[in-house]
Each structure stands twice: as C-alpha cells, then as structure tokens.
C-alpha cells in the first residue's frame, strides 16, 4: 500500500530525513518511535504534503500512485489521513461545516454523491459515539479552546468520518488520560480493516498495549535505524534509546 524508498527531505536547506525506507501493507499497524527531534513528525508531514518540506531524493508510492506528485488535498482524497501532533485551532470555522465540506469534497473526488444534511448528521452521530466525543465540542469553532485531549479525540473523530486507507497518528496518545487513551485506541481498532493500514508515532509503550503493532521502527537522525516486532517497543521502554544511538554512532565511525 505504502512504499517509501530512500526518502530525503529538508526544511529551509537543513536535511531532516536522510534516507527513509518503509513498506506498509494493507491490514498492518506500524509503530514509529524515536527520540525527540529525530524526524517523526517531519516524515508524517512529508507524507501528508506539507509544502515547507522539500523532498530532495527518493520516492513514495501509495496504492501504486506517486504520492509526492499530489497536492495535500488530493492525498487526503486518495485516503491518506494525518492525525496532527498539534491540531490547529481555527476560530470562526465551525467544526460541522468544516467536516461536511471535507467529507463531501472527498466523496466528490471519488465519484460519490454528496451527503445531504440529514445523511451527514446521521453519519456524524454514529462516529461521535465511536470516539465518545461530545456534541458540545462540535458546535464550537474547529479546535478552538479545546483541551489537548479534546483535540486529539477530535482528530480520531475526523479520521472516523473520512474513513482513510492509510492513517498516520502523530503522538495522538500524548496528553491523553487513561480513559481517553482507551477510547481513542478503541476507535482506532474499530476502524481497522484488512484493507487499511495505520502508522502510529508514539513515545510510549502504553499505547501499544491497546493498538498492537505488527512492526516497530526506530527513527533516529532522519533514518530508520532499527525495525522489529512489538517486543522492540518493550525493550525501548526498558532501556531507552541510548543503546540504539550508541549502536548507530559506532557504526558510523567504522
């Protein structure tokens, strides 16, 4: 489904990603871990199409399409979803209006009929139950004044509404209390099918108790320096990143 080959990207001339290779197949869950500043959010942003990042080398193919050729909106319409690490507050844009526009533009792109107000509300109600999000939140401006946890929950709610093929969750677990973590993870798990895939970026093993990954990767200095199964996450939790850094740095000097 997603194939990243030797991806290099920089921002304002500074290289951040230095040769990422990653294969994600339908039905899989991949976890990406790694120390602060290693490039996890950069990778997520590059996949979503953020223009500030310049791809200097490499390829990304998604369902056989060259993803890097597409505008951010077309990537979303093709089924890429990024749950932002820091969702933006947008005063004056109503959550409902925003979502309806988004859902219908995605449907239009896929040649599906636009949802009328009634059908849209029905869909919204259904998905609201899934992530246990309060109607009151959605009657406000998009993310405006939402708490950290509410913003994260709203990201998963949007994900449920848009039913993406590839979801990239950038630290969706950070700032969630234990109940919210369970609700958000449940949401993600219920949305999982054999046809879609999930990449979760996280610092914490506790999320991976709920969303069990098929693969765990460690990103360090703009590269995936180690990959393994869910046991790797446990090891990281116990030992931290230093041993991996040491491994990488000693290799570099050889």
């Amino acid at each position, binding site marked *: 489904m997603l194939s990243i080959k030797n991806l290099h990207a920089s921002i304002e001339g500074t290289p951040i990603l230095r040769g990422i290779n990653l294969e994600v197949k339908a039905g899989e869950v991949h976890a990406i871990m790694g120390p602060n500043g290693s490039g996890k959010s950069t990778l997520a942003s590059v996949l*979503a199409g953020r223009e500030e990042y310049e791809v200097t080398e490499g390829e990304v193919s998604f369902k056989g399409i060259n993803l890097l050729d597409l505008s*951010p*909106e077309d990537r979303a319409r093709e089924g890429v979803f990024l749950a932002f690490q820091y969702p*933006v507050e947008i005063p*004056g*844009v109503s959550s409902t209006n*925003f979502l309806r*526009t988004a*859902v219908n533009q995605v449907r239009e792109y896929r040649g599906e009929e636009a949802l009328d107000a009634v059908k849209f509300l029905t869909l919204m109600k259904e998905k609201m139950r899934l992530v246990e999000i309060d109607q009151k939140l959605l009657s406000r401006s998009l993310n405006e004044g939402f708490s950290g946890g509410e913003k994260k929950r709203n990201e998963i709610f*949007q994900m449920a509404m848009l039913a993406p093929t590839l979801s990239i969750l950038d630290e969706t677990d950070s700032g969630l209390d234990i109940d919210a973590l369970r609700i958000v993870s449940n949401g993600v798990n219920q949305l999982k099918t054999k046809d879609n895939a999930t990449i979760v970026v996280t610092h914490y093993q506790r999320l991976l108790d709920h969303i069990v990954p098929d693969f765990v990767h460690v990103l360090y200095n703009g590269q995936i320096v180690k990959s393994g199964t869910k046991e790797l996450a446990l090891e990281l939790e116990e030992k931290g990143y230093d041993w991996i850094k040491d491994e990488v740095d000693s290799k570099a000097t050889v």
Partner: protein
Amino acid sequence: MSTLIKEDILVELLATTGTGFEEVRAAGKQAFQVQGFPTNKSEEYKFTAITKKIEQSIQNFAPAAPFTVTAEEVNANIFEGYAGDVLVFANGHFAPALSSTIEGVEVSLLSEKSSIALGSIAKPEKDPFCALNQSSFEGGIFISVPKKAQIQKPILLLNFFKATAGQVIQPRVWIEAGDFAEVTFINHSVNLSDIPYFVNKVVEVKGGVNTQIRYYKLQNEGKNVIEVSNIETDIQKDARFTSVNISLSGEMVRNNLTLNILGSNSEGNMYGLYLLNGKTHVDNHTNVDHTVPHCESNELYKGVLADNSRGVFNGKIFVRQDAQKTNAFQQNSNILLSDDAVVNTKPQLEIWADDVKCSHGCTTGQLDEEALFYLQARGIGKLQAKGLLLYAFTGEVMDYITDQSFREYCIAQVQDRLGSNL
C-alpha cells in the same frame, strides 16, 4: 497640485447646477474655495490621492444627466426575499414612480423647508468634498421618520448610476428620525454603464432622543467608480446608531463616516469590511465624537487585500472633557494576500476626559498557512480552504446586519469573492 481641475470643475459644475438653496450653496462654494481639492500635503488625504485619480479618469466634469430606470432594472437589483421598501434614484435624482410609498414615513424632494438644515450636520468646512457637494448637489431627497414611528421594514436606497457625457454625480440626502423612532436603511448602488464616473455623496442623519437608526451600505459597482461618501449623524440621548459598510470594488473609494454623540446613554457602532483586489483603493475614515458622559462606541473594520490593492483605515475617536464614563473600542484587522497589497491603518484617539475606558488595536497579517494545510489535509481544496479561512476572518462583520435578505446577499457576494481568489 493642479489648480486646473479646481477651475474646471468650479466653472462647469457650479455654473450648471442647482436650483434653490442659494445660501446653502454659496456657503458650500466658499468652504470649497478655502479648502480646494486635497493635495498630497493634505493630512486627511495623504494616503488617498483622489484628486489625481479624478484628473486621470474624469474628462467631463459636467453632471451626469438624469435618466429613466426601468422596473426590470429595479427588480433585478433587489435582493432575493427582500420584504422591505425601496426608494430608487437615478444619478442621485429620486424616481418616485419606481419607489414604494412607505407607511408612516415622509419622502420628498429636498426643499427649502425650515427643518432641513443642509450643512448643519455635515459641515462643509470639515471636508472639501462635503463642501463641493453642498455647492453643487443635484436632486436630493428628504426622508423623515416621525416621532415614535417604528419602521419595521428596512428602506432600501437603490442608486443607479450612469455616466453620460457628464461624469460627475453628486447626490444629497437628508434623513431625520424623530424621538423614539426606529428605522433601517440599506444603501446599494448599481452602475449601468462602463464610463467612469465620480460620485460625491453627502448624507446627513439627524437622530432624536431614543432613536434606533441602522445604516448599511454595500459598495460593489465595479472598477469604474471613484467615490467619496460623507455620511454624518447626530444622535441625542438614549439613542443607538449602527453602521455596516461593506466595500467590494471600485477604483478609488473614500468613506467619511462621522457620528456625533450629543446626548448621554447613547451607543454608536461602526462595522466595516473591505475585500480588495486588482488596483482597488478603499479608504475608510471614521470619526466618533463623544461629547457627553455615559456613552459607548464600538468599532470593528476588517480587510482582506489581494493583488496591488490598497486599504486605508483612519479611526478618530474624540472623548471630550465632559464625556466621562465613556467606553470606546476600536479594532482594525487586515489580511494581506499579496506582497504588493498595502494597508495604512491609524487609530487616532483624543481623550480629554479622565474617567473613560478606551481601547484600540490594529493587526495586519497573512493567511495562517498552518490552518490552510490542516484544512487541505482533510481533503478540502486549496481555494475553498482559503475561502473558509477568510470567511472565518470576515464573517463576523455580516452578523451585524439585521435584515436577513440583505445579510444573505452580502454573505453570498463575500463568499463568492473569497472562493474566487478574491
């Protein structure tokens, strides 16, 4: 600057126009001669080179002749679902046959009756264009809302402009609202030709005690318009005046909007929105004069500027020594969509009273790129995402329009513009 234009206009305009109001016109002429056309040294017009613009675009300084508007033209320019009354004007001349008879409101041509004191509210010494209009206005209308009359339906002032040989149009309006009266005006203008014209309009509003007056104005007549508008209002105690001004096009537009609060416990609200593109230049000069205690004024102007457009905002607030316990708020916020768009904004607060609450602020920024990306990342096209964000920024101004059909018309116009790259 040019003295030529001054003489040309004076010779042509002052000679051809105006029956009646000899004293009034003479006072206007004198005030104009003292001030002359503004130059680049005139403090009040230093960002708006309107004299130059008039020289460039107007060849024939004669008044545009009156003409006949058709009922179809009137109907085509009334907002969908509009249920209020309509007064039609052609180059400033009232067209009674196409206008409603408004229950409880007196509407007539300007005449020299004692209650009409042209120039007593919009004083000709304060602005050269106000003086020019007073010297040589054509036509003109008198609207009187009697004491205690609550006019529920809005009154649409529908102006048709058509420059013929002459390209100068100088309408004049005198509105009075008796004590406890309530009335809403919507001023909308339509250009019927593609010849450039210069419209120089003066509206004086005399509001009594406890009046509620709303005055909405939409400017969207296209590129060929040079406009100066002086709207000045006096209100007495316990009154409220609300203005909403929306400017969407024009070559060069200058709005002078002045409110004199003459009685305590009154409130003045001025809201404005300008969406500018191409080379459009819009200058809003507002002025609230607090002369008495316990009054409030609220002012919010928002602008979105694209291409090479230029916006000017100057907000004067005077709080006189007697005007204790005044609350005065002013905000001007702008988004620039292009590196070549410019906005000059200047709050000008002059406060002589000591027990007052006044605040002002101005911001000029760009579209929030992170917010734009967020919307795009959800599948919303870039143009529409921009439109959503810009509407989020501007929409609040339209909320102050109470008439639903006019509000919806404005929203549609604004959204149309915001979705189309401006």
